[in-house]
C-alpha cells in the first residue's frame, strides 16, 4: 500500500511538472505570437509610409527563426526589437514629412 502511495505521488509530481512546463511553453508561444503581431503591424505601417528599415526585417526574420526551434524567449526579444525599430522608422517618416523643407537649398 505504501509502495503504491509513493508511486502515485511520484506520478502526480511528474504529471504536475509536465503540465506546468507545457503551460509555460504555450504561454511563451502565445507571447511570441502577440509580440510578433505587434512588430509586424508597426512594420506594415512603416511600409505604408514607404519608410521601412532593413534592420527591422532582419529582426523579424531572427524572431521567426528562434520561434521555429522553440526558443520563444529569444524570439520575443527579436520581435520587440523589430517593433522598436519599426516605430522609430514611423516616427522618422512623420518628422521628415515637414522637416525636409528645412534642408532645401534656398
Amino acid at each position, binding site marked *: 500500500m505504501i509502495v503504491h502511495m509513493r508511486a502515485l505521488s511520484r506520478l502526480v509530481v511528474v504529471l504536475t511538472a509536465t503540465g506546468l512546463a507545457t503551460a509555460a511553453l504555450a504561454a511563451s508561444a502565445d507571447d511570441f505570437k502577440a509580440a510578433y503581431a505587434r512588430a509586424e503591424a508597426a512594420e506594415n505601417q512603416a*511600409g505604408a509610409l*514607404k*519608410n*521601412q*528599415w*532593413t*534592420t527591422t*526585417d532582419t529582426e523579424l526574420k531572427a524572431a521567426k527563426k528562434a520561434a521555429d526551434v522553440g526558443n520563444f524567449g529569444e524570439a520575443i526579444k527579436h520581435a520587440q526589437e523589430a517593433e522598436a*525599430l519599426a516605430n*522609430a*522608422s514611423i516616427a*522618422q*517618416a512623420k518628422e*521628415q514629412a515637414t*522637416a*525636409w*523643407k*528645412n*534642408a*532645401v*537649398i*534656398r
Partner: protein
Amino acid sequence: MRRAILLALALFCLAAPPVSAADSVNPKADFKAFRAYFTKRFPKVPLNDFVNGPYSMNADLRKQWVEIDAFPPYQFALDKGKQMFETPFKNGKAYADCFANKGIGIRQSYPYFDAKSGEVITLDVALNECRQTNGEEPLDYTKDDMAALTAYMAFTSRGKPFDIKIPNDPRALAAYRKGEEYFYTRRGQLNFSCASCHVQSPGDHIRTEVLAPALGIVAALPIYRSEWGGMGTTSRRLITCNSQVRGVPLKPEDELYRDVEYYLSYMSNGLPISGPGARP
C-alpha cells in the same frame, strides 16, 4: 472709403495663411539657388566638370580615372548595347522606331513628364515600353541589358546639354516636388537623406569613397562601378544608396525614383551628358 479698403486689405492679410518659400513650387528659383550653392562652394571646379562626380572633387582620384578611362570598364556594355539597339525585334521593328531622331543623341531630354499618363517617363521606362509595344518582354531595370542599352544611348548623346522641361501642369509640378522631397528626406536607420551626402558633404570621404556633388550627378548614368563589379542603372544607384543607409529600397523605377531623377536632371539642365561613366 480709402480707410475701409486699407482695413479690408489688412484683415485679408491677417486671415490668409502664411506662404513660405518652402511651401511654394518654383523650379526656376530652385535651379538658380542649387547652381549657386555648388559654384560658390567649389569655385575652382569648372561648371561642366561637375558631371564627373568625385573626379571633379579629388585630384588623386581624377588621375586614377584618367588612367582607367584609357581602357574604359564600360566598353563591353557599350558594345553590347549598340548591338542590342541595332538588332530588330521579332516583329521586324527596332528601338529606333520608338524614339525621336531614331534614338540617337536624345538622352539629354530624359526624363520627361508625359501629359497622357500624368507620370514621369525615364529613358529606361521608355525602352521597356518600346519593347512591350513590340511584343518583347521588359528588361530588368537595374543592370545588364538595360544598363547596356542606356549606356549606348548615353554615349550617342555625350556632350549634349541636359534639357529637362517642367511643363506648366500641376501634375508635372507635383512630380517635381515629390522628387525634391525624396531627395531631401532623411531615411533609413542611419538617418541620411540623399542631400546629406551629395549636398552637405561632396568631396568628403565615406570610408574610401569620395562623395559626388548632386549637381550633375545623373549625367554619367548608367555607370560601371568597381564596387558592383559591373554596370548599373539609375535605379540600381538609388537602391544602393537606400540600402547603404539601412533603408528598404523602393522597387526599380518606382514613381518616387522617377520623380527624384526628374528633379535632379532638371537641376542639371545645361550640363553635358557624360555617360556611361565609371566610378570606384
